């Protein structure tokens, strides 16, 4: 692989990401899947880096899941989005950062549709006023939360306590990066690094000391695709996608996976359990799986957050082998203790997956 070739492509797909002052909107599902990721994002950006990131309890879903499953028409989704943007303006912001990749894709799609069909934008502005009495506005800059962590990657590296380096061997950890399909596959110019060789997570991993693995099914969907998992009878497709990816990355012996989408880490993590139980196959070392992380969790780990405060005990695949490699201390006895010190319940041990 010619690294300079990738650098050339990355140079072509840079986007302007303002340094500060953002209106932040959460994802519908990430708080249940990876409960500490969003709060870690806010803590790092606000308290560790001193940025102005505002959020309000008045924002709602973007409507993305309903839109992609044909439960609501596009105009309804657009009106929901127009309300989110109007809240941003109401609170005095013009930079919009969202936690969810589905939302990011839908925001990009909506903004592009409005640009191409101004009459539709006018109609949505009218809908917004009639339904909410809010003034229509569009963000000056629209970014995904991973864009911001990418932007701050060197500031995070400067404050890091740990590196993505195997402390026993001194070698960089071998990292698989997986981008949510709706991050840049629909609009390559909207993502850092484009669609074919996205740089947003690569930049973080490199800044924090790791080494990226370029494996053949790198571009393939994780299996989260709405049509695959929402309809129960289609879930075999979802599992097949994930299985295909793991079979492809296995020869490269990855230490971990980093993702920037709500669904990807969930499916890449949970389906490893299903594959292990149904086929008896595991992809990590010595019967372990390959730990899967959100980018906020990885940022938290390198900055020295307690792994259990990052919610890593909610992962299906145990993260301990990775913590050991990075030299991060943890107390196994506290793994299943909640913030109040009470036991949150311990899952049953799978048969095959350690």
């Amino acid at each position, binding site marked *: *692989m*010619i690294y300079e*070739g*990738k650098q*050339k*492509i990355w140079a072509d797909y840079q986007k302007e990401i303002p340094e500060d002052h953002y209106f932040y909107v959460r994802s519908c599902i990430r708080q249940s899947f990876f409960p500490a990721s969003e709060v870690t994002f806010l803590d790092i950006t606000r308290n560790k880096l001193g940025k102005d990131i505002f959020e309000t309890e008045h924002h709602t879903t973007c409507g993305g899941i309903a839109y992609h499953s044909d439960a609501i028409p596009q105009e309804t989704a657009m009106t929901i989005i127009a309300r989110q943007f109007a809240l941003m303006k109401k609170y005095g912001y013009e930079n919009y950062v969202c936690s969810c990749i589905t939302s990011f894709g839908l925001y990009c799609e909506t903004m592009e549709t409005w640009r191409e069909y101004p009459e539709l934008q006018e109609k949505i502005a009218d809908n917004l006023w009639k339904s909410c009495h809010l003034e229509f506005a569009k963000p000056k800059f629209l970014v995904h939360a991973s864009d911001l962590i990418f932007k701050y990657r060197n500031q995070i590296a400067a404050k890091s306590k740990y590196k993505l380096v195997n402390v026993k061997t001194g070698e960089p950890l071998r990292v698989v990066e997986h981008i949510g399909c709706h991050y840049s596959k629909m609009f390559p110019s909207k993502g850092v690094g*484009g*669609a*074919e*060789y996205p740089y947003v997570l690569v930049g973080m991993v490199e800044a924090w000391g790791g080494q990226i693995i*370029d*494996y*053949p*099914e*790198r*571009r393939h969907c994780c299996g989260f695709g709405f049509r695959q998992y929402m309809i129960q009878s289609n879930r075999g497709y979802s599992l097949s996608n994930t299985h295909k990816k793991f079979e492809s990355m296995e*020869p*490269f012996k990855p230490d971990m996976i980093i993702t920037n989408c709500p669904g990807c880490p969930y499916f890449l993590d949970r389906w490893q359990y299903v594959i292990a139980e149904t086929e008896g196959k595991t992809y990590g070392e010595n019967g372990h799986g390959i730990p899967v992380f959100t980018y906020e969790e990885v940022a938290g780990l390198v900055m020295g957050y307690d792994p259990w405060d990052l919610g890593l005990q909610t992962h299906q695949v145990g993260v301990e082998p990775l913590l050991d490699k990075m030299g991060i201390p943890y107390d196994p006895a506290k793994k299943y203790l909640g913030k109040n010190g009470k036991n949150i319940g311990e899952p049953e041990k799978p048969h095959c997956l350690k």
Partner: protein
Amino acid sequence: MKNNILIIGGGPAGLEASSILVKMGYNVILVEKEKELGGHLAKWDTLFPDGLKAEDLLKSLIKKTEGVKCFTDTQVQSVNILDKSYNVILSNGITVLADALLLATGFDLFKAEKKEEYGYGIYEGVITNADLEQFFKGKFSIKKPKAVGFVHCVGSRDEKACNPACSKVCCATAVKQACHIKETFEEADVFCFYMDLRMFGRHYEDLYLKAQKMGIRFIRGRVSEVAETSEGRLLVKAEDTLSSKPIKVTLDTLVLMAGMRPSESGYMVGHQLNLSVEEDGFFSTKDTMLSLQKSNLEGLFFAGAATGPKTLPDTLHEARSAAMEIDNYLTKK
């Protein structure tokens, strides 16, 4: 007094036209931006359909240009339209007052790195048709491959690449190169991924049959993406539309048949003269049937791929035709 004719472009079209016009008694000045004459022909090893050495053809074309004033490593800096002539300032400081201009500016190869999914410039085993000719010429070596693939229509017939047109020569070139690879590496498996084979010229179909007899496998379908395996080989995903199945093939070398795009340097000259171009970016001719060598400007003519993709024989025919048109024009003037 002899008329001055300035020919811009020292490829096959410019060379052929200049040799004819100089024999007619005109004062011919040939300008070539590269250090050597020959255009793409100078970079090619052999030519379809019969494997003629490009070098031999180029030598013959250059040999005929005795009497032509050739300026290589020279570009047109500015060109102004006068009453009945063109005032052209060259980058070597020379000014030419030309009674007729011939644009033989040819084509540029599509930049294969624009098809990011094919990994040109990213994966070492991915090369272009032009690179492969350099290999055949012995300019560089490749490790003995177990399997080689050819992707037809890279940047041609591709609306996403902003070029829906066929580049005309890629199919025959791919089949010629595939045969050459099979002859060089007998044990290698060779695959051609094509949309449909456009083997329209005399003996082209024979070349295709020869390739099939040599065991080259033709897969009707487009390549979707290329990645690298843990052994550093290329994993190519494609569709086989005849069996209606997606396929994966592991290769050592993948050759991208980069198509023809309008020449950048030709565009610069055309822009100064306000010449119109068609949707494909190539120059518009005066009409589409009877005056293919004429432009909409008096005394300005075209030959070769400046007006769209052409094979080498077509290019040479056009050069001869352009010489006749220029002679007619200057005789009547």
